[in-house]
């Protein structure tokens, strides 16, 4: 790799300028009377239909980092660390089909903006709401940082950022994020919703071309054969095979638990919930559960680029001269395609980073505003003030992610992302079980959450690998099973057991259970049903209306 790939860079810049214009124009798309509320700024007016929601959720869940990391994992160590993403993104949809319509309904009825809003209202516990909010923010921050890592990978392969000068090296990233922050500030969720159309179109285009190219020029059979050979080769450093081509029985648990744990966790992430709550009705969610797997197919095919790169002899070498598997996708495109098409592929990845980064920062900002600022600092905050706080926090969140990536080692972002997945799953009992039952005691849920968080963090910290002393793997031996399994899922089971046992204890002690804001019919409310408004939104005359 010598010098800067000017043709590819030009294409990327043109497409970047285009989506920037789209991002700012989005403020006028489906225009509301006022953007000064979280319903408008943070949830795009809560009116997106099936089509927009499909693009928005697709753009939100299938992030640039996914597109970089999954093929990279396939390239480096094969199926268990990479291809589990396929069963993961298949089974997630039947799971959400069941519970997300209920969450949508109760949030619609009560005007909840974040998952923590629901947890707080349902269990009558600001503390539990805070726990869910803090977990969400902690898990989201490194996820945003990883989107930057995705952009960096593309820039590096284009030959940008090789300078030893820190300012010059990171300037492109800085500009990209500053622009992103600006249009997210002004357009809110409408910006990523509209840009998602561009992103998804580019991704589909690039994948279709890549699949045809692999089929014709390399051959799928040859790709799999090359991968099989590489994975079976003994790694001299460990004395074990390089990777896994087809999981042996000892790895079944690992493969299945990674898929199940990740699937349960995905819609605990605040950015997933934000996109869901922006939809218009229950049916929009159910229809999307049936059509979103189209992206899973794309992800599966993309994963195979990791194998095709093995057959093609792709050498992902960073600008520092060291091998870096994360560069395998951009390097494969640079080697295999004319510069202009490589540019389109790079732009797809870079824009693919902007959409989730915007939604994640909005989701994290909403959590801060609703469940920390409003819950603890200004209970009677107005709608306008809420929106203003959220807008400013969204800037701070992005700045934090930028500092994270620029000042810390890239490995740290990946470690924290691994931890984030473990952490976010610990909010499942309070959120999803709370949709069905108030049997669990709020304090039992809180302690279960805390135990799961601590257990998961310690277990992940103890995993060493060749590359790192800690956080080397998301797999650990499952107690009583004796096989490797996903730490998040083990922590989740422990969390659940603690919550059940302590519920009996707190019941026996007759501890106060908190006030439930919701009633059974709330969980079936649909489009057009009346909303129950928070007290600060009452106007003088309607405050005379009494409840029946």
């Amino acid at each position: 790799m010598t010098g800067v790939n000017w043709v590819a860079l030009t294409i990327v810049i043109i497409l970047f300028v285009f989506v920037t214009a789209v991002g700012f124009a989005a403020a006028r798309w489906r225009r509301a009377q006022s953007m000064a509320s979280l319903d408008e700024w943070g949830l795009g007016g809560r009116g997106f239909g099936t089509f927009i929601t499909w693009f928005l959720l697709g753009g939100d869940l299938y992030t640039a980092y996914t597109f970089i990391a999954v093929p990279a994992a396939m390239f480096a160590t094969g199926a268990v660390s990479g291809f589990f993403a396929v069963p993961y993104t298949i089974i997630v949809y039947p799971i959400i089909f069941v519970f997300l319509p209920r969450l949508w309904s109760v949030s619609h009825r009560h005007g909840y903006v974040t998952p923590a809003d629901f947890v707080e209202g349902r269990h009558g516990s600001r503390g539990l709401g805070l726990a869910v909010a803090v977990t969400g923010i902690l898990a989201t921050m490194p996820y945003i940082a990883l989107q930057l890592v995705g952009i960096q990978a593309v820039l590096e392969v284009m030959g940008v950022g090789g300078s030893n000068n820190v300012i010059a090296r990171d300037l492109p990233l800085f500009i990209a994020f500053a622009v992103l922050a600006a249009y997210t500030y002004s357009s809110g969720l409408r910006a990523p919703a509209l840009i998602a159309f561009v992103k998804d179109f580019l991704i589909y285009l690039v994948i279709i071309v890549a699949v045809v190219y692999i089929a014709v020029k390399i051959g799928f059979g040859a790709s799999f054969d090359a991968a099989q050979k590489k994975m079976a080769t003994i790694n001299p450093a460990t004395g074990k095979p390089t990777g896994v081509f087809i999981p042996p029985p000892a790895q079944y648990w690992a493969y299945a638990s990674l898929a199940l744990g990740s699937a349960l966790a995905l819609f605990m992430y605040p950015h997933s919930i934000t996109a869901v709550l922006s939809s218009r009705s229950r049916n929009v969610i159910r229809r999307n559960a049936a059509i979103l797997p189209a992206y899973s197919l794309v992800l599966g095919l993309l994963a195979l680029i990791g194998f095709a790169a093995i057959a093609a002899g792709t050498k992902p070498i960073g600008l520092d001269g060291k091998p870096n598997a994360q560069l395998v996708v951009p390097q494969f495109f640079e080697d295999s395609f004319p510069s202009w098409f490589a540019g389109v592929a790079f732009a797809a990845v870079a824009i693919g980073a902007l959409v989730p980064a915007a939604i994640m920062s909005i989701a994290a900002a909403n959590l801060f505003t609703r469940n920390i600022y409003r819950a603890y600092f200004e209970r009677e905050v107005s709608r306008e003030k809420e929106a203003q706080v959220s807008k400013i926090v969204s800037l701070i969140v992005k700045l934090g992610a930028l500092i994270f990536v620029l000042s810390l080692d890239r490995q740290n972002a990946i470690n924290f992302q691994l931890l984030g997945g473990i952490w976010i799953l610990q909010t499942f009992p309070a959120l999803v079980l709370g949709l069905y039952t108030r049997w669990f005691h709020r304090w039992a849920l809180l302690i279960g959450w805390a135990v799961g968080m601590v257990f998961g963090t310690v277990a992940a910290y103890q995993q060493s690998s060749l590359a790192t002393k800690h956080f080397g793997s998301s797999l650990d031996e499952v107690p009583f099973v004796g096989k490797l399994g996903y730490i998040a899922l083990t922590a989740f089971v422990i969390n659940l057991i603690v919550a059940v046992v302590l519920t009996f204890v707190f019941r026996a002690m007759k501890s106060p259970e908190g006030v439930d804001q919701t009633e059974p019919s709330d969980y079936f409310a649909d489009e057009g049903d009346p909303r129950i408004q928070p007290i600060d939104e009452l106007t003088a005359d309607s405050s005379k209306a009494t409840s029946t």
Partner: protein
Amino acid sequence: MPAARGVGSLHTEVEVAEPDRTDQERDLSLDRSRQLPPGVIVAVGLLILAPIVALMLVGTYANEGPRLWGFPFFYWYQLMWVFIASGCTYLAYRLVHNARRGGDR
């Protein structure tokens, strides 16, 4: 609706958009939850569980052969489930939708 609920929390049960939700309206939302016949619930449950169970049983598909267009069984089988799962979920949606449509306004 018990008037005491919501006291001491930030929300009240007062509604702004349509000041009084009538009993009829509330019954309508409740009806939606009750309208699914047992047969539909079982069918939807099976459609939802099928992909999850199938993909969790890694031992049933962790084989190299038979290959299809060069894809080992392990890889094409899982990609095939993308389509089956999507179909199952769509069918479940239609079942729920049709079962509820009668009483849905």
